[in-house]
């Protein structure tokens, strides 16, 4: 951070002071930007929340119909339609994001342990650049493969005709589904998590790994008990990062998880995973053209506001979790 020189200490030139102020202002602009973002988005979104109250978050009615009604509001501002019960979107977001993060965490932890401890040297050398590459692939490419390969496969070969019939009166099953959405999203967020977790497992102090080995604990157990434990803060950071990415994923999901604001019904049994759904982010992308219609735009901004709050909350939760883990790390002393 700031350097305190010894004899020729902090130069107090006028240009230097001006430079410091200028750079400081630049840095503070970031904070200003975030402030503006919160203020603008929320002020635009407010009417939608105000008109619906808490029912905004609840179920009731068909989201797409409600959106259409809002879009077709009469021109008179006092007659704007605002009715929106966004529960299917919230539910879809939580479901798809949650499932993808859980799946991805499991696969990432196991893969990271594999890379650090059990993988043959040749495999290890190949996997490193490959994982970094996967992390850099644009989401639209994942979406393309999803929509051109997975969706038809699921729609034609996995979902049976009888399953389609069973829910025909409620929803069409054509392959765009939460199954494909979760699968592709998992593949998207796993590489980042694997990269962070492998780094963390590799940096476990050798003191501990040798100590565990010296007690006669086999490699897997030692990795699982001491290694994962030592890497816990990094793993939490990785999960937060991956969840943020999953939450904000709009394009890929709008391509593969369905374009209907439908809430999949778990009571449908296994057909449940074949039902389409649409997250908040995907809804915003799908409805971006109508932003100029006032009440419609405000509703869409309301969706964005919910996303914004969620991502703030996520960052904060990650920070809090890392703080509580400090007492068990070497920094405790």
């Amino acid at each position: 951070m700031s350097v305190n020189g010894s004899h020729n200490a902090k130069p107090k030139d006028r240009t230097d002071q001006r430079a410091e102020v200028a750079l400081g202002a630049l840095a503070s602009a970031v904070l200003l930007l975030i402030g503006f973002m919160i203020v603008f988005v929320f002020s635009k979104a407010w009417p939608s929340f105000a008109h619906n109250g808490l029912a905004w978050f609840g179920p009731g009615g068909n989201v797409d119909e409600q959106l259409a009604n809002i879009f077709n509001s009469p021109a008179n501002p006092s007659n704007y339609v605002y009715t929106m019960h966004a529960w299917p979107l919230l539910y879809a977001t939580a479901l798809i994001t949650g499932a993808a993060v859980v799946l991805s965490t499991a696969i990432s932890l196991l893969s990271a342990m594999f890379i650090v401890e059990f993988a043959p040297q040749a495999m290890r050398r190949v996997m490193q650049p490959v994982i970094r590459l996967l992390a850099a692939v644009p989401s639209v490419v994942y979406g393309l493969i999803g929509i051109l390969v997975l969706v038809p496969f699921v729609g034609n070969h996995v979902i049976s005709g009888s399953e389609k019939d069973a829910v025909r009166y409620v929803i069409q099953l054509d392959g765009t589904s939460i199954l494909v959405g979760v699968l592709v999203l998992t593949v998207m967020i796993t590489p980042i998590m694997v990269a962070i977790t492998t780094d963390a497992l590799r940096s476990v102090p050798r003191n501990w790994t040798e100590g565990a080995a010296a007690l006669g604990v086999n490699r897997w157990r030692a990795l699982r008990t001491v290694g994962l434990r030592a890497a816990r803060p990094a793993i939490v950071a990785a999960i937060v990062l991956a969840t943020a990415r999953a939450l904000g994923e709009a394009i890929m999901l709008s391509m593969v998880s369905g374009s209907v604001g439908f809430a999949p019904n778990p009571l449908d049994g296994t057909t449940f995973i074949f039902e389409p759904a649409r997250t908040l982010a995907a809804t915003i992308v799908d409805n971006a053209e109508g932003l100029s219609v006032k009440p419609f735009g405000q509703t869409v901004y309301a969706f964005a506001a919910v996303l914004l709050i969620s991502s703030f909350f996520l960052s904060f939760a990650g920070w809090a979790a890392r703080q509580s883990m400090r007492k068990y790390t070497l920094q405790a002393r």
Partner: protein
Amino acid sequence: MDPLIPAEEEGFDPLREPMSVAAQLPPPVRRIAVEEAPTVAQPPAAGNGHVAPTAVAALAKRMPRADTAPLERMRTEALSIAYGQKLAVNQVSLTVRQGEVLALIGPSGCGKTTLLRSLNRLVDLTPAASRGGKILLDGEDVDLFDVTHLRRRVGMLFQQPNPFPMSIFDNVAYGLRERGSKKPSKRELEPVVVAALERAGLLEEVKDNLDHPALALSGGQQQRLCIARSLAVQPEVLLLDEPCSALDPISTQVIEETIVSLRSEIAIVIVTHNLQQAQRVADHVAFMYLGDLVEYGEAERVFGSPVAERTREYVSGGFG
């Protein structure tokens, strides 16, 4: 990738707690019978240019000897260890006995730590290491049985105390929990953990809160915790790699007393840089120099009247 928060490895800084340890420590749990009168080594009767009594030997205060007959536990036969092309240990044969403490002494780089780490096959973790000769535990070749079994019977204590990032209880119970499929319950473990802590001389200080994080303990306490952790799995041999070099004198004394008290049940091998420490605790001494075993014998003889010239130089402080 994105900035991480991995736990940084901070080196242990013994300078951080000079005074506090002395203030905190209660009287040691077990006070061994008081030091004997200093022995002055007598020069051998025959006058063929033999060594003068070493000054160090004259001043040393010895802990009392064990009274049980030593039983052989481990043996190395022409053991050689190389890292890549470089030979670190050259054809060393020595015996580790239960009932006595074997000290490995020698200057830095002489191979004593490598030798120690080969006894529980920890050198196998270094990819470039290769081993020749035999190591026997109770007469069986250690390469023939599973390495985790070996390490449960031959425990190790490291130079830097390395308690895991868990509570005190979990640390001591670790070796017992992470073996095999059936996990013992906390109730089953508790008496074992308490007993191990007591043997290590730590129980008095921590018994009020065994769920405290182990990393919050002081350096000396952490090292005793590591002793308790090793003792909990009931090893037959205990290897100590300069266990007190990072600790203050009072913790060192407590640990030395613990070591001596353990030797009747466990065969102990200690690598140490500190000649006085070796004199205090060792029954047998092996002096190594550049990978060779230069001298091996009873402590009094090696310190008092060493046979090899090199040993005499080292033991009198000529080099180190």
